[in-house]
């Protein structure tokens, strides 16, 4: 028998491989959650759940950045964990499709160092950066144009001259300039001729043709036209189109449900709400829409089962509000969305309490603490007044009247609209049922 010794380098190789395999397990443990999130994002994107896809990519990026920061403290000159160009491309694509190409450009210029942007690896960001530049230029030109007319009557604005100037801006420029010029032409048209909304539709159609993601103004216009004409067909058609592009489009579902409620097609509205909940489980918008649907269909007791439904989401919303108050810049889009939806949910819950007519104090407290106060401070901290809508202030004021809350009345008097539903309710000429169920006063 030949007796041979094993080679020393074989033993060394075995030890080195074992050590590297152990190190690989450590790497797997550290980066595994991010890998899982990116794969989940890909799956969401493939199934048209674009907000979920973005959130998954965003979570992966935040996680890696956080892990990298730990090592970065010890070795500050090295870049540790990060998402690759391809994942960033998918992230910005999803963002552009759900928000706008200009916003995606904003993220690109914020996240990436200019030297990296110019390196060519991030060539895909050029499109978004062009969109952002176009948006900034057209917006700035429009602001300059309007700067002398803040106090002027609408009729004093030289509409034709401004349209001509805007059209000149689009000449010879890229598609984004053309699209944003159409956007501002429509905005100007709607401001100067608010009674002739339909005339802005061709501009908005052209804009959405060039930039499909810039649909909100188009949909708002369609909704306003549908309200005045009672013809919701086109709005519903466009809503279905938007939903088919992104099953996470909560606003499109809300719009569709509201349109179907207005048409008293309650079963179809319920189907739309259930679909909303299927693709966006547990979102406050679902509970808000269901409460509204039940109330409008005369099933006030049925609304009760959805009253407490969104409590988990409400806790998240309060947590996000605390982050806003702490001026945190690290609020994810998913959390922000829950916060925005929570305002609608509170309004729906308050409406239910108003209808029950048994606890106006609770209705006021809820409306003030969970809707008015967060919306007010959100507007104060961010400069964005979209949450602090007049109907929110008016409903809070109506609750203050109903609960005889002197302090609340004093605080809100200057903000509430001194006409319409508020005045009529104060005089006793409108009841809560008329405001909420019949929609009188245009608040609900």
């Amino acid at each position: 028998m030949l007796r041979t010794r094993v080679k020393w380098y074989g033993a060394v190789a075995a030890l080195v491989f074992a050590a590297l395999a152990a190190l690989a397990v450590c790497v797997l443990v550290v980066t595994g959650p991010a890998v899982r999130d990116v794969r989940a994002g890909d799956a969401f994107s493939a199934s048209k759940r674009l907000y979920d896809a973005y959130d998954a990519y965003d979570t992966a990026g935040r996680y890696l950045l956080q892990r990298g920061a730990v090592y970065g403290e010890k070795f500050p000159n090295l870049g540790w964990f990060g998402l690759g160009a391809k994942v960033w491309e998918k992230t910005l694509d999803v963002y552009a499709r759900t928000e706008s190409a200009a916003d995606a450009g904003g993220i690109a210029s914020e996240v990436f160092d200019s030297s990296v942007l110019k390196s060519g690896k991030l060539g895909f960001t050029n499109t978004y950066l062009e969109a952002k530049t176009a948006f900034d230029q057209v917006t700035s030109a429009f602001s300059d144009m309007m700067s002398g007319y803040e106090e002027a009557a609408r009729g004093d604005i030289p509409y034709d001259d401004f349209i001509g100037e805007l059209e000149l801006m689009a000449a010879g420029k890229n598609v984004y300039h053309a699209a944003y010029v159409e956007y501002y032409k429509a905005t100007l048209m709607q401001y100067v001729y608010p009674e002739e909304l339909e005339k802005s539709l061709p501009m908005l159609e052209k804009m959405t043709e060039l930039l499909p993601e810039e649909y909100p103004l188009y949909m708002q216009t369609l909704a306003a036209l549908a309200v005045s004409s009672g013809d919701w067909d086109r709005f519903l058609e466009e809503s279905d189109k938007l939903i088919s592009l992104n099953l996470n489009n909560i606003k499109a579902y809300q719009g569709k449900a509201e349109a179907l409620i207005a048409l008293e097609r309650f079963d179809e509205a319920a189907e739309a709400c259930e679909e909303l909940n299927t693709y966006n489980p547990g979102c406050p918008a679902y509970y808000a829409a269901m409460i509204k649907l039940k109330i409008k269909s005369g099933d006030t007791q049925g609304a009760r089962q959805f009253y407490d439904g969104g409590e988990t989401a409400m806790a998240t919303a309060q947590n996000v509000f605390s982050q806003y108050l702490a001026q945190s810049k690290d609020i994810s889009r998913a959390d922000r969305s829950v916060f925005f939806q929570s305002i609608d949910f509170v309004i729906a819950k308050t409406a239910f309490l108003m209808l029950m007519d048994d606890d106006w104090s609770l209705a006021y407290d809820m409306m003030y603490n969970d809707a008015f106060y967060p919306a007010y401070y959100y507007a104060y901290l961010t400069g964005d007044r979209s949450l602090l809508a007049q109907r929110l202030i008016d409903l809070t004021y109506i609750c203050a009247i109903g609960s005889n809350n002197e302090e609340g009345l004093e605080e809100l008097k200057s903000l509430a609209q001194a006409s319409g539903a508020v005045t009529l309710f104060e005089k006793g000429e409108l009841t809560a049922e008329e405001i909420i169920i019949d929609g009188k006063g245009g608040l609900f």
Partner: protein
Amino acid sequence: MTAVYVIAKMITFPAAALRAFWEHCLLKIMKEPVEGTAYLSLNELCGHVEHRLLAGAGRNLLFCALPGLLNLILAVPLVMADAGNLFILGAGMRNLQTGLISPLFFVYILFYWLGASLLCNLFPLYEDAMHLLDVSSNAKGIKKVPLWALARVIYAGAFLERHGINVLIAAMVTVTAYILK
């Protein structure tokens, strides 16, 4: 054909040497004589040790499968860790957000090469696989079916390794994953 085989083994030399080491250890444990102990000789024995054909189905299966199994156990974390980072997260030489060099990228590349090398050295020498096939055909009783199936899998793997096709497959998978990442 030997040249292709030797080139494939040289590309994956750390794992080839490791496989030969496992084989050598196993033969010593089984008290079988070992005739040639150069783990990386430039001939058809590269990545294996020279020995007499073993007697008995169980011993043959153990000798053909265990070294590959050990390589597979080491390969799985290596390949999973770097495939996730290189192909799913798309990690590059520089961190895109900070613009700084990422040292982990080089670790991932090393892991990937070593992991793929291990996966390219899972199967025994072609002659050992053929012998296992013969032995498995003569096996009797209930063990014949699993032995027959395993012997064929091992034979197929050894055939791929003999012609360097496994390295070619690994290269194609890498290129495809890189393009699709």
